[in-house]
């Protein structure tokens, strides 16, 4: 489902996505989006942020209250604050306008992949085997591409959180709340230091390929093939 107050953009996305075999419906604002969602149950929702009536933020909030469907937010440069809020509320990813259809499709595929992947449950699973990463949660052993890595407890927690939320954009706030607790959500420097250390231990090159920085937003974890 595509939610946008711009009929032309809905028209283009509908055609673009249909040409790749997706079934698409459009909605011109958040309220209509919620109505359409409740009767049609799409696999994925793409929404604009600036809309009349129920705006993108409110739409994400209400949608999250009733469903775990992947949400991709369309935003413009200059809307960073709203974008971060949307991601904090529970949007999964974002695409910055103007975008090529390929970029959007890549995000759509990643979001659908993540949504359809078997859930990683905390209690039963001892071994996490995702992409280049092999983690034993009991012995706290970590192997990246077969090479053993020694992590501090906080680095370990951070990596596990990243692995469990692979390919999802994680805001600074989300990460700080998850690893350090809700009192530390403003302490971006903690995160910078620990991500820096973690990168030194797991990244093969100076340019990060696993923990990718999303400027002003947070990080995205790509576990590799």
């Amino acid at each position: 489902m595509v939610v946008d107050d711009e009929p032309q953009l809905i028209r283009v996305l509908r055609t673009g996505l249909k040409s790749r075999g997706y079934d698409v419906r459009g909605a011109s604002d958040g309220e209509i989006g919620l109505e359409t969602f409740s009767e049609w149950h799409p696999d994925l929702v793409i929404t604009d942020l600036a809309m009349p009536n129920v705006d993108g933020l409110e739409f994400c909030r209400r949608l999250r209250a009733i469903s775990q469907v992947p949400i991709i937010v369309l935003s413009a440069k200059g809307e960073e604050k709203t974008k971060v809020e949307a991601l904090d509320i529970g949007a999964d990813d974002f695409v910055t306008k103007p975008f090529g259809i390929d970029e959007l499709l890549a995000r759509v595929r990643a979001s659908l992949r993540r949504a359809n992947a078997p859930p990683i449950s905390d209690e039963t699973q001892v071994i996490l085997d995702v992409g280049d990463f092999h983690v034993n949660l009991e012995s706290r052993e970590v192997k990246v591409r077969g090479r053993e890595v020694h992590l501090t407890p906080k680095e370990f927690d951070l990596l596990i959180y990243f692995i469990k939320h692979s390919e999802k954009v994680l805001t600074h706030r989300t990460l700080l709340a998850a690893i350090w607790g809700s009192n530390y959500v403003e302490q971006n420097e903690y995160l910078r230091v620990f991500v820096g250390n973690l990168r030194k231990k797991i990244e093969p090159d100076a340019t990060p390929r696993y923990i990718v920085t999303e400027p002003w937003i947070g990080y995205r974890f790509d576990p590799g093939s």
Partner: protein
Amino acid sequence: MPLRVLNLRWAGYVGAVGGTAFITAVLAPFQDRVNSTTVALAFLLVVLFVALFWGSRPALLASVLGMFCFNFFFLPPLYTLTVSHGENWVALIVFFTTALAVGQLSAHAKQRAEEAESRKREVESLYAQLQAAFDRESEAEAIKRSERLKSALLDAVTHDLRTPLTAIKASITTLIDEAREQTAESQPVELDAESRFDMLEVIDQESDRLNRFITDLIDLARIEAGELRLRLRWGAVDEIISTALSRAKSLTTNHHVKIAAEKELPVVRVDANAVSEVVYTLIDNAAKYSPPGSSIIIYARRGPDGMVTMAVEDEGTGIDRDMRERVFDKFFRATRDGDVATHQPSGTGMGLAIAKGIVEAHEGKIWIESGRNGKGARVVFTLPIGDDDGANHGQELLNHE
């Protein structure tokens, strides 16, 4: 300088000694002719002045010195510190007591006055500081507000430029993907002829939209810089309206458009293109903000004072009274900012600002009223009929060229 000397710490004691010495020197030659009361009062005067100028301690010194000089030079036996008569004792004691009281009281009064003065100065300086702080604050606030306004305007402009660009970019990349379908490694692309045409149409329409937006921006910039050049010619009002209507034809397919014009309308001396642009903008707005199937009425009649009044009325939700001025501000949008429920795309926020600029360049006025029965919005504007002498402002502009 003299004031500085008066303020010095030891000046009070010098004053006490000097004053007493002066009175003694003046009165001593006449000691057999002046009575003791005059002498005592003269010394008291010294105490009083010393107290007033320098406070209680120098006044105390003046009292003691006065008592000694009074006794030594003026009370018999002269030039001794002994006192012969009982009544002279009384005089001496009364003098000393009075001198002390006068000295202390007046010094006290002076101190009070000084304290009050300094408190007043303190309050004044605090007030001045406060005022300065307020001034700085409001200046900073004004700067901040203007910065905020600028960034809001920038946001509005970038949004309007980026929205069509987004549709264009998405369409073109879809078409490109299809063109290189054979080499693409991921999902297969299936675009039928209709979809392909759809994409091209979007690109065409959105390019036009970008162009319109940029033209509007330039018009607005011209109006704001006072560089709008009107080409005044005699023309018929109904022709202006029909030009605007034929341009707006594609916008009004879902509305009933009616013209309610007086039969005997005068010809007007205006820039017909500019005025028809105003009418077009108003029709465009009326169509955008009123439901399909409703009516749009265009009025034209002769008004008072050599003016022609024109109006465009719709049956939409209307415009709130407190927003009727603001909709003429550039980049102000009733739909986005004022939350008028409509699923139509909102405008650029420039149409009415440009219309206002054009009408005012003709020395006319433009405003918004409620439609008939208080429903919908009616945008009204007036234009001077004009005359051949070119008394019109626009003509003057032309003459400057």
